[in-house]
């Protein structure tokens, strides 16, 4: 088979799920393009990419964490805190805001890694706690209100401007995904991540540095969440300590919809991106549908539909898994 087509070669039930998400994504795009006039307008496409890049970044980190068999609930709080840090540092230099926000995310990721690998606390609880701590820290340093960014230092360029006709956040997300794909598919550490997700004890007996790899994965997830926070602050002109609620769930849903098994040990970077885009597309289409005036679904339907989507995917995944086991 041609190398370009290799991602589509069906080898396991996970591949079927991944193929499914791609088909669903194309189906939705086709549906939208045929039904709505401005769906494929450059305005819609660019603002779609600009806004959803943040979520794509978080989903990438989450994919790595979930492949190791863990979970990172702290990403929303981390992004909120990082947006505040970035906004506070933005008057000095745009780079200070960018690096400061990423460093803040990195710090939360490091803390997660420490609690999980050294204190041996389940990822679910560890990151639940750091989520609270991150929100608390963000609110404290922001004094409970949103923090306006500096418009003089060029910090807002990161989130609002284009480069070669595409939004800069989209470029950042694209770069991160290419890097993530290289790490998972081409570098030894990617194999280690997969092996740990398959069985931590076995991976350890094979001589893999389990603790160090796990710590690195949570560090990456935190840093990506920090980057998403930087983009948030830059795009909306303010660090927002109360934003990010539910982002972790969006990310988890993206990863699951992308066919990555929550039990760890398998997963795909590309399908995660497709999953994130698919979920985002649902809302984009919902907005257009409202615009047509036939129906009027309030914004509240979004979470219902999001949940229904997740439901369908996990049930399908469970059925595939069951067939895989019995086969």
């Amino acid at each position, binding site marked *: 088979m041609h190398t370009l087509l290799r991602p589509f070669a069906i080898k396991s039930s996970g591949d079927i799920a991944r193929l499914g998400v791609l088909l669903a994504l194309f189906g939705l795009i086709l549906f939208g393009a045929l039904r709505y006039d401005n769906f494929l307008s450059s305005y819609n496409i660019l603002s779609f990419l600009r806004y959803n890049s943040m979520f794509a970044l978080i989903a990438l980190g989450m994919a790595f964490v979930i492949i190791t068999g863990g979970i990172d609930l702290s990403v929303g709080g981390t992004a909120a805190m990082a947006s505040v840090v970035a906004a506070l540092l933005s008057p000095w230099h745009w780079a200070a805001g960018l690096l400061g926000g990423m460093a803040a995310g990195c710090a939360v990721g490091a803390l997660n890694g420490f609690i999980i690998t050294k204190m041996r606390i389940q990822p679910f609880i560890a990151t639940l706690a750091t989520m609270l701590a991150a929100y608390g820290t963000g609110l404290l340093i922001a004094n409970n209100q949103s923090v306006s960014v500096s418009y003089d230092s060029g910090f807002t360029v990161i989130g609002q401007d284009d480069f070669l006709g595409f939004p800069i956040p989209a470029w950042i997300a694209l770069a991160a995904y290419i890097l993530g794909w290289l790490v998972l598919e081409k570098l030894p550490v990617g194999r280690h991540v997969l092996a740990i997700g398959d069985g931590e004890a076995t991976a350890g007996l094979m001589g893999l540095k389990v603790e160090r790899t796990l710590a690195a994965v949570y560090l990456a997830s935190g840093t990506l969440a920090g980057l998403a926070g930087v983009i948030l602050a830059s795009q909306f002109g303010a660090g927002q300590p109360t934003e990010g609620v539910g982002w972790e769930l969006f990310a988890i849903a993206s990863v699951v919809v992308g066919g990555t098994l929550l039990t760890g040990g398998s997963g795909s970077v590309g399908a995660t991106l497709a999953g994130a885009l698919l979920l985002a597309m649902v809302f984009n289409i919902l907005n257009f549908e409202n615009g047509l005036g036939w129906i009027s679904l309030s914004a509240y339907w979004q979470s219902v539909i*999001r949940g229904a989507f997740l439901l369908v995917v996990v049930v399908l995944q469970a059925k595939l898994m069951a067939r895989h086991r019995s086969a």
Partner: protein
Amino acid sequence: MTTIETPAPQPSGTLSPGSRLFTLASRYGTFVAFLALIVFNVAVTPNFLSWQTLNVNLTQVATIVIVATGMTLVIATGGIDLSVGSLMAIAGALAPMIFMGQFWQVENMAFAVALAFLLPVVVAGLFGLFNGLLVTRFSIQPIIATLVLFIAGRGIAQVMTNGNLQVFRNEGFQFIAMGRIAGIPAQVVLMTVIVALTFAMIRYTVIGRQIIAVGGNEKAARLTGVPVKRVKLFVYMISGALAGLAGLVVVARNSASDANLVGLGMELDAIAAVAVGGTLLTGGRANIIGTVLGAFVIQLVRYTLLANGVPDAAALIVKAGLIVLAVFIQQRADKS
């Protein structure tokens, strides 16, 4: 998980001093923390020893305890229920709609109020059953299975009310939060009854022992004839129903139902109460009294910080540290 848990008491003679410390801390740590908080408050917080303080803390802790009791059962089977906050919102949205006549004309107010108590709890219980079905029928991990309703549940409540605040005044319905039974706030009585019943169930009934067995070692439980699926369905249903009840208390206390806010973050408080209270998050144990203590500790920490002018945000950080510390001590004690 390869660890096999039995509820049998562990021999204490062979412990090293270090692990004995963790065992002691895990057994009495929550209680000591609770006492320390009270002593600290008596010394520092002005007017701490007053009926009003007691009243405020008891009424605020009641909803956490009610939800955390159900959560304890779910966690004892090795599961988790993230949907409790959203189910509170659904129940909280339903009740006022019933007695304000949004579904059908209210002819007999007493009947409508009775329905407003019953129906939302049943609905929340059915949603809990749905969680249980996902966990048992489809073998979906509890975190993900309950994530579905965590996301969709609040949306359902918001769609039902169109996101609007429902303000009401209904003495019969609000008795659950405003009323007093023998001078004690009704929700505190409710909390006590629920805790007592659950405690008795764990201790003295077959289903109670089965819950522990399922969480201790699911395979062994199945092989010894425990109806594992039915037990799991049961705990998720109870957790949902109790969350619904807590939702009723919250809206009754506020004289208003806001689907955006009712029960927001409750899953964290409930899980924290269970963890701080000494129930292992990996299952096989259900320390109801510990959960109550855990909820009180969390409530008192928040109260202490707020009463002494520490911002709410800092309280979040303290709560985070508390959760990590509690789980750490539990696990270390369990390994020894």
